[in-house]
């Protein structure tokens, strides 16, 4: 009955579904952009070969942090039981410039002999040597840099010999150089030590052991490091995201409430007739709830389809923007919209509960 009531006026039902879908799309895309940003920011950590990362004591992230470790830290870490290998990387932030512009960039120096800490995947070119660097392909495209071109990083001119992927986000890109080149550009610091574990070694136990035996360092598993990194984005954007999502949900609430209210007011006589025929209020409430459920499910389907299309199309226009639409996000948005819809249904439900069955006789269409 709820289904029939909803679609009796197809134009109104379509407008309601589209209105709710638009608001859910806003929520999904905002969340997707946020999740995409987190994915990009944590991409290096999640895809690095390191099971455990070691940083200066108290430093738990790469972004917006400065970590400096004694030069012998990699050797000391390598001596810890359970550690298979330890590789230093150097990390700093600055700007990268090409013929077409300038971008903020992280500069990562790594040991090119082992490749540990370097780009996860090269999509063009080769590993850098002295005076050379690997850029993220998106940044290279935006900066107008081709393989073999010269570009500037932190005031130093380097030749691009390869392109990596996954290192550009809305705010910055990543440039990889050999450790000695990093020392030439910046300093000879060791920022982090990437650590691989022996097969079967417990990462938690090894991190505890590293912190206890090396001293003055913070050791984190890959998941802990990625979570800490993601939290930076979360902390910076959570309020804004929450506000925008709330606005989206309030719009959904208003659209559902308006749609239901209009539908209910137009059908008060029908509800009165049903009451006269013997329907109890819970049964009529179920019909209203079914309208909410169908509206939200349809709107969610439309919104998810549109969000997935946007997630595919938007990076074509703005490569730095990644929209990550996950099943969990869709489920959460739909559930929240359902709750919002049920809240919106309270007023129509009150009207129906208070409806006198006798009005079926007293009122005519």
């Amino acid at each position, binding site marked *: 009955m709820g289904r029939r009531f909803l679609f009796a006026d197809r134009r109104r039902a379509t407008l309601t579904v589209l209105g709710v879908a638009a608001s859910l799309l806003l929520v999904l895309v905002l969340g997707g952009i946020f999740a995409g940003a987190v994915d990009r920011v944590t991409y290096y950590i999640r895809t690095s070969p390191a099971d455990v990362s070691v940083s200066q004591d108290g430093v738990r992230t790469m972004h917006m942090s400065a970590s400096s470790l004694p030069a012998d830290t990699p050797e000391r870490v390598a001596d810890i039981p359970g550690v298979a290998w330890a590789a230093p990387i150097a990390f700093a932030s600055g700007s990268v410039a090409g013929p077409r512009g300038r971008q903020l960039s992280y500069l990562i120096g790594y040991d090119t002999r082992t490749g540990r800490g370097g780009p996860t995947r090269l999509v063009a070119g080769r590993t850098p040597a002295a005076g050379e660097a690997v850029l993220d392909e998106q940044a290279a495209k935006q900066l107008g840099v081709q393989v073999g071109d010269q570009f500037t990083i932190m005031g130093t001119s380097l030749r691009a010999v390869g392109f990596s992927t996954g290192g550009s986000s809305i705010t910055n890109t990543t440039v990889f150089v050999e450790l000695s080149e990093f020392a030439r550009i910046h300093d000879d610091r060791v920022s982090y030590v990437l650590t691989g574990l022996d097969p079967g070694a417990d990462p938690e136990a090894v991190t505890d052991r590293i912190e206890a035996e090396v001293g003055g360092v913070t050791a984190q598993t890959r998941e802990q490091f990625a979570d800490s990194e993601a939290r930076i984005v979360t902390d910076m954007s959570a309020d804004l995201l929450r506000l925008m999502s709330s606005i989206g949900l309030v719009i959904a609430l208003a659209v559902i409430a308006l749609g239901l209210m209009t539908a209910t007011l137009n059908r008060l006589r029908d509800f009165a007739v049903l009451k*006269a025929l013997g329907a109890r209020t819970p049964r009529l409430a179920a019909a209203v709830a079914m309208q909410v459920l169908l509206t939200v499910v349809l709107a969610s389907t439309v919104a998810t389809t549109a969000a997935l299309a946007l997630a595919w199309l938007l990076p074509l226009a703005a490569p730095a923007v990644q929209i990550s639409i996950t099943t969990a996000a869709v489920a959460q948005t739909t559930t929240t919209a359902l709750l919002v819809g049920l809240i919106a249904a309270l007023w129509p439900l009150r009207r129906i509960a208070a409806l006198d069955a006798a009005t079926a006789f007293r009122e005519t269409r």
Partner: protein
Amino acid sequence: MNTNAPTTSGNAPVPDPVLRSPGDNTPHGESTWPRVLTVRGLTKTYGAGDTTVDAVRAVDLDLAAGEVLLVMGPSGSGKTTLLLMLGALLRPSAGSITVTSRDGVDVDIAAAREKELPVLRSRTFGFIFQDYALLDALTATENIAVAANLAGTTGPAAHERARELLERVGLAHRAAARSSQMSGGEQQRVAVARALANDPPVLLADEPTANLDASRGRDLARLLRQLADEDHRSIVIVSHDDRLREIADRVLWLEDGQFRHVAALAVDPVCRMQVEPNGPHASWRGEQWWFCSDACRRAFVTQPERFTPKPASN
């Protein structure tokens, strides 16, 4: 059982042998059909203090199985209030309404708890509305099936019941039609089928022919009569439609919340509507003539010969 009530002219309320007195407990004459509805001292009072209005005053009524009772009366006389109380849609201020279900159980609707009323309504009464009141979002079959659902018959059984009833009212071919796709007569037949969905012992009809033309009104009246005769189903009709007297076993005149003797009924000689004797009137040829309105009275006094039978010549 079903006798036409002859139309009487305005001045001389002629006792009609078919129309019985208010509260007549033997509507079928010698009929031995059991009572299905017994009403005693039914009263509905609105307001309080100086603004008290008695919409229905101490009404007694008995309805036998298979009886068609027509309740007539002027607007505001309490007809609908009475119907609502009989259908458990309105709580009486005083009195009792005892209905006997199909399985022989007597229930006093006036004393029933609020939460028992929906079940009572769905199983005991079938409602027929003036404007049909079909749910336009549903098909004819679904409209009937919904009513069956409300009494506990669900799924294919409800749809099967709906199909049977549509066949019975001659609308099997309109099973998938919505109300907007049906004529008024078809809609009212579907509404009758819906009223029968749970095989109720009593049908309550509010102006069932008001929105139908003469031909369709007659068809519906015949259908109601047929339902009463074939199923021994009792039908209470509240109406202004004089044509329904043809199918009624009994006609009661409700005025100021009370039944008045039907012998007091008269017919306006101009418009042929039933009138109450306290309304506009005029004297002609030494007789008193009653009218439904001043307009009819004026029309009458202008050309009384046009509206009255010629005196018999010796």
